[in-house]
């Protein structure tokens, strides 16, 4: 009998209305495998507000509290307050929002929840644009990407602004735990969620979530793209535990072009533009390594 490398029990039903090859479906699947049944998920407007299906369909085996686009942080604070006053313990409360609902319209409420030390795990599934509305740029869309609001035309081409560094923003909130996770590395993903579950306070998870239609990516290559994001250091896997940075997967340091070339949203980029991305990625990676070294030397919160 073959042994699976991640928990076998499923907390998601088939029949979600996500697109074929949707990364966000895997993010939810792994998240709930790690957390189990005693979990309540709050979901704002985003793909995942639609993916459970039209009423009365629910593709999760745990309760969902839908909330307004910008309100996830507030909703999880309210849920926790209610459970506390009712004396209900051992429930994982999860805020589960997209990148737009986190780094843009939901940033204020999330920042508030983090500052209030709300006992919850906030998961941002990052598909790097407003995908539910049909691929518009968000603060989390990377430099160089095509979206429908950064069209490649004659006077204006692609997104010229950098992706917001949400992990740094959360680091600055001095939360006890923040980590990046990838659907290409479910074992690491689940380990981090389980770790977050054991730490008190507000925990933040940044989940890379490939979107085949939005990235102009063959659905078959969804996991492959997530894997290459890690291997090229476009999306490094690391965690920040009580301020201490630790890289959890070094990656091969492949050229970023390996990652970019899979995706139509980057197909317009010139050689020099790709090397600009490469330099930025290299610099971020070096910075991350320095942070890790510094944390080890300084023995922050060991």
């Amino acid at each position, binding site marked *: *009998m*073959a*042994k*699976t*490398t*991640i928990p*076998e029990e*499923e907390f*998601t*039903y*088939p*029949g*979600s*209305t*996500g*697109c*074929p*090859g*949707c*990364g966000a*479906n*895997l993010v939810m*699947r792994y998240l709930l495998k790690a957390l189990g049944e005693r979990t309540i998920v709050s979901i704002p407007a985003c793909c995942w507000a639609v993916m*459970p*299906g039209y*009423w*009365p*369909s*629910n*593709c999760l085996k745990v309760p*969902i509290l839908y909330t307004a686009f910008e309100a996830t942080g507030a909703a999880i604070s309210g849920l926790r307050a209610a459970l506390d006053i009712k004396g209900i313990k051992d429930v994982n409360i999860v805020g589960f929002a997209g990148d737009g609902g986190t780094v843009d319209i939901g940033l204020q409420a999330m920042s508030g929840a983090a500052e209030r030390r709300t006992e919850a795990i906030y998961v941002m599934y990052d598909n790097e644009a407003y995908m539910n509305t049909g691929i518009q740029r968000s603060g989390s869309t990377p430099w160089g990407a095509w979206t429908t609001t950064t069209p490649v035309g004659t006077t204006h081409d692609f997104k010229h602004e950098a992706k917001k560094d949400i992990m740094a923003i959360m680091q600055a909130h001095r939360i006890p735990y923040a980590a990046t996770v990838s*659907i290409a590395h*479910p074992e690491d993903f689940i380990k981090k969620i389980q770790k977050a579950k054991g730490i008190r306070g507000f925990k933040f998870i940044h989940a890379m979530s490939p979107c*085949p239609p939005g990235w102009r990516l*063959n*659905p*078959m*290559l*969804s*996991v*492959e793209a997530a894997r290459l994001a890690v291997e090229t250091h476009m999306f490094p896997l690391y965690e920040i535990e009580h301020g201490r940075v630790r890289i959890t997967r070094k990656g091969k340091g492949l050229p970023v072009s390996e990652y970019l070339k899979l995706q139509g949203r980057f197909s317009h980029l010139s050689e020099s533009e790709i090397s600009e991305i490469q330099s930025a990625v290299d610099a971020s990676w070096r910075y991350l390594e320095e942070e890790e070294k510094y944390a080890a030397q300084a023995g922050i919160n060991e």
Partner: protein
Amino acid sequence: MTKSYEEIPLTPIADMPSTMNITGLWRVIRPVVDKKKCKKCTICWKFCPDAAIVLVEGVPEIDFRFCKGCGICSHECPSKCIVMVKEGSD
């Protein structure tokens, strides 16, 4: 089928498993598993976004009611025993 206002809850509380959505109808390409070549690594199961693969003694059984035919299982299979074929062909 529209339900009478008397038969629905106060607010839309969704309490039916999403298996009511036969999303397998979306499929345009279909995974075909060569079970003889399968090494029971369970990787295809692990990466199925729709949890539409069931392991039977470690071998994938695809639930075609829900498989959307994304092809991730086929791409990720290290022993290349899952191929995608056009839906409707044999």
